[in-house]
């Protein structure tokens, strides 16, 4: 069952096969109604839609969704950030766990986990602003991945809050485009995610 994708994914440590369905503007700083959910699911067609329906039926908006093959390619990992009524979340988690294709679903809100996100930001960058912008980039430990006469593309990784902050700093130069992967989560220590 194991496929090639899994090997690549496991080895270099970065998610090379990420599909991001939706990534809302990062202006919305995670509020009390934002939840970080992780799932281990069968790596099969149709699984995503079953999961999405559980959220949809109970009025939850999926803010970001990351799907990648798990280390064992028979399964996939899903990380979902979603917003909605906290009291509905317990029911959503239970309904997710009820799905035959879901091995387990967990809510990590308010838990100690490692959370990372990656963003590509294309910012307007006339030559006279280049130094200034590169200073900001350096501050956030981001990398320049593309450069043109009038634009600069930066790659930044880290917490959602860090990415939000960098976005805010770059806003005044004019962000032409931005893509964010959405949050990926892993439990610290020997605990299972």
């Amino acid at each position, binding site marked *: 069952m194991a496929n090639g994708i899994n090997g690549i994914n496991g080895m270099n440590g970065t998610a090379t096969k990420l599909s991001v369905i939706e990534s809302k503007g990062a202006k919305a700083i995670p509020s009390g109604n934002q939840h970080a959910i992780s799932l281990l699911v*069968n790596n099969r*067609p*149709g699984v995503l839609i079953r999961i999405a329906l559980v959220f949809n039926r109970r009025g939850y908006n999926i803010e970001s969704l990351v799907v990648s093959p798990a280390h064992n390619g028979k399964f996939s990992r899903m990380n979902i950030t979603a917003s909605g009524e906290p009291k509905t979340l317990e*029911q959503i988690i*239970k309904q997710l*766990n*009820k799905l*035959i294709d879901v091995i387990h679903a967990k809510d990590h809100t308010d838990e100690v986990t490692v959370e990372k996100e990656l963003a590509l930001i294309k910012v307007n960058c006339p030559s006279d602003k280049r130094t200034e912008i590169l200073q900001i980039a350096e501050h956030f430990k981001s990398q320049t991945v593309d450069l043109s006469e009038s634009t600069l593309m930066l790659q930044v990784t880290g917490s959602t809050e860090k990415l939000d902050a960098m976005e805010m700093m770059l806003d005044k130069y004019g962000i032409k485009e931005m893509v964010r992967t959405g949050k990926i989560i892993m439990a610290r220590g020997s605990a299972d995610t």
Partner: protein
Amino acid sequence: MANKTCTGAEALIHCIHQHGVEYIFGHPGGAAIPIFDALVDSPIKFILTRHEQGATHMADGMARATGKAGVVLVTSGPGATNTITGIMTAAMDSVPMIVITGQTIQSMLGLDAFQEADVVGISYPAVKHSYLVRNVNDIPRIIKEAFHIAETGRPGPVLIDIPKDVSGAVFEPNYNVEIDLPGYSIPTHGDTAQIARCADFLAKAKKPLLLVGHGAVISDAGRALKLLAEKLQIPVVNTLLGKGGFPETHELNLGMLGMHGTAYANKAVADCDLIMSIGSRWDDRICGKYAAFCPDAVKIHIDIDPAEIGKMIKPDCSIVGDARLVLEELLSMARKGDTEDWLAQCRKWRKQFPLKYGKQGGLKAQYVLDEIYRISKGKAIVTTDVGQHQMWAAQFYKTDSRFHWISSGGAGTMGFGMPAAIGAQFARPDALVIAVVGDGGFQMTLSELATAAVNKLPIKILIINNKYLGMVRQWQALFFENRYSGVDLEGNPNFVKLAEAYGMKGFRIKRNADVSKTLAAALAYNDGPCIIEAEVEKEDNVFPMIPAGSAISEMVLEAPKKAMAKPVGST
């Protein structure tokens, strides 16, 4: 083990037969032809229905009469979409069912091919699980998994969509396969510590009450339940689908609770100091206004589905597990409290607020049902449709044993009753099967009269003909100042003549004086199905009634003099 080659369809039918299936209900079409071809040489009997919805309700009726999955086979596109109501009906009531749909060939999937419908996509919210079979080699495993999923844990419908090139493919099947369901586990025994806590609560309670739901029926908890209730001397109420989980003629039974439950059951619910649900999901039909539901009583919840715990009611003690196994363990720990005064109170309510109906005037549906209960000695398997007649049947046809009450509860699907009776009669050929239906709902699936007639099934179809969509009319009468809208069934056929048109026997009851004689004759008639049309009073209403979304204490026992406030509950 070496196997001969065969088609995917042949392997499919072989696997279904191996599982012990005797009947498949359905309707053919192009995309399912290879599967129908495989049926020709199979010992499985195929029952041709006149509409795919009928097939699903027949499979459902068979499942509810046996506890085993009913099987449906239909073609793609419209054939497949016609099963959706039946699938949803089964899902809402936790009924095991396998629905096999033909599908266009894989290379045409997603290209709007003739009779292509994304039935897997359409049915997601209504199934326990579903499969689109893409590889013929997967058929033995998928069939094994499908029955396992449908019949275990909290049962439910499983849909299997099979493209024609898969059912038609020739291969060498390996039947010796394991199921592969890492995400599926079935709760069995409950947590012993919680069961012990539950026993403590029960011993302390002065006014305890057992609430029996469909889960108790499904898990065959009846014996343990009876021993427990008798040992602890606790009264019992049941939901509409819990009928048969605990004998309704037992002295501890107070009958059905909820919207149209008995007054004494509802009074006991409103007044108890402990209520223990065994396989009920605290549905809005029984709880009414949640904020006002037994606010001071200890609530205990036993359910096999963890998602039910805390969904509607926050329990003080919950046990996830199979109802029978949990009750058996509880039985050994439970200690009797002092319930004598409480039982005396319940007996008093029963005397004070009996189920009643007027004996004067036109023919009363309640009287007809009371009589059919008496004449059949309460031994019949009763299926119902949805509406006033369903509630009256639930009130007056007391159910004493498992698998004898078959009614669409969660979905409330009109058109369910008669096809469900067909399925039940196939499953239990020697049983007396009575379908109690309304003149409205019956017409939604009446084409299945042909299925009943051609198979000479001796089902008794009792049509409670009030010439109205009675239950809706009742709401309009009580809450909408008698402004009747869309409820007049003008244009009903002559149901006795309709029976004759299908070569069936028809009986008609018009007067109180005819009831016993005609019912006795109809029940004695066994040369195939018969219709008994009871022309009842047109504008009678079902009582007691707790308006939707109201507290149990707001129960009304008889027609109020003035108009009532519009209910706040959804339906």
